[in-house]
């Protein structure tokens, strides 16, 4: 694939932002055992008119480089031929429109797609071709984005993902206040469980929802709270799937397993 490392000015955030993108492209042909190259794959490959788009979010301790450095995301995506992976930096924002005025949610779900679709015209603008996913804080972010801005995404893949409303902010109260404000978050716009329930009652579009974590994830209980909230929505409007990856924790290995599953599921739709 082709790696593109963007620095893009965001008017909403009033700052330069880092975004990496993996897009379909030519790759070296494997060498024969005798050292000779096979015919090179040429630019005729991957001439799909549009690419499906995975918006892939990093975790709390991470940045736009996380997925590329810690998982084989490129080789996973490459095998499908017409999938682009966008890796934005969320700068510790949990991907939300924060109470302090940094509108990362709006930037990630509205402004950035609009900018990138003009830079890379092959990125599909169809809702069903755009999926948001992430692990840990990025998993929460994908829930927040997918259920706050459901018109932007056809699917959500939230992994290692609990709800900020259930999180323990001991020793990081200042960060909590900067991002989400004071007090109980269960009645705030940041409560993922409530977002899921509210969307279920509305006429707005409903994304496909895949969710899960490792069996050894220290925050497995928080994932299961969110699971239970989703399961309480009548009619299963999200075609919900919850998975537990046995033997895996809150780790890069679980990131890989989860994203491999999500991409395969969505590409085979």
């Amino acid at each position: 694939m082709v790696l593109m490392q963007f620095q893009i000015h965001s008017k909403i955030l009033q700052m330069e932002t880092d975004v990496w993108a993996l897009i379909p492209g030519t790759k070296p042909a494997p060498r024969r055992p005798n050292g000779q190259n096979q015919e090179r794959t040429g630019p005729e490959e991957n001439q799909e008119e549009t690419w499906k788009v995975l918006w892939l979010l990093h975790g709390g301790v991470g940045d736009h480089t996380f997925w590329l450095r810690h998982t084989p995301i490129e080789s996973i995506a490459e095998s499908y031929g017409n999938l682009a992976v966008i890796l934005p930096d969320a700068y510790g924002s949990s991907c939300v429109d924060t109470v302090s005025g940094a509108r990362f949610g709006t930037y990630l779900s509205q402004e950035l797609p609009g900018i990138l679709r003009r830079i890379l015209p092959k990125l599909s603008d169809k809702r069903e071709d755009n999926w948001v996913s992430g692990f840990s804080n990025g998993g929460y972010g994908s829930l927040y984005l997918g259920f706050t801005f459901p018109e932007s995404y056809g699917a959500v893949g939230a992994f290692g993902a609990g709800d900020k409303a259930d999180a323990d902010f001991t020793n990081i109260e200042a960060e909590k206040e900067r991002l989400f404000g004071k007090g109980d978050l269960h009645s705030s716009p940041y409560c993922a469980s409530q977002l899921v329930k509210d969307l279920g009652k509305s006429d707005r579009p409903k994304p496909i929802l895949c969710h899960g974590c490792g069996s050894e994830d220290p925050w497995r209980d928080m994932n299961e709270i969110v699971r239970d909230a989703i399961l309480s929505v009548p009619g299963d409007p999200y075609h919900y799937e919850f998975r537990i990856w046995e033997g895996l924790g809150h780790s890069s290995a679980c990131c890989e397993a989860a994203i491999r599953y999500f991409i395969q599921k969505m590409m085979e739709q």
Partner: protein
Amino acid sequence: MNRVNVQSYVPSVHTYLGIQLLFPEDLEYDRRYPLLVLLHGRGKGRGQWEHMVYLEDLVDEKKIFVAMPQGNQSAFVNLMSGERWGDFLNRELPDLLSGWFPIRTEREGRGVLGVDMGGYGALRAVEGYALQGAVCPVCDLADLYETDYHPYPKALFGPKEDLARNGYPVLSWEETKTSSCLREQMQEALQDMVKRGGELGWY
């Protein structure tokens, strides 16, 4: 102005290359933009032009894409060792860029400007670009043979006595310097290229 560094496998040179691009902030849907390719000199990299001249106003005011590819020590011409840097510059680079980005697909929408060794490749890039320009270009590759150029010029271009036969002619170029400072010369050449682009209807 926005920027992107692209790392892509390029079949004509058998390796992954870096291409730095600058482009306007507010791109319009369904519009394709002119392309100016800037080629670096020997011993330098794709950042040379941006370090030496101010490009932001050009990109934002004139609404053009500027691409600065990595050229290693190739002079951006096809090499006797098999790497086809000339084909990359004239064919593959424009095709890749207009395939990814909203860049004009026709030759008339493209210009190339090179410094030093990059000037040699730029002046020869008639196939791919309607406009060619150079700053202090290497006009005779034979000049590289007695220097500390690495890889060895013979490995890249063949024996010195066979340069013309191997397809590396001596170029004629009239330098119209108004300054002895390379930075100022590069800025002047850029302004000249911008003017010529205007004459071609780029903006």
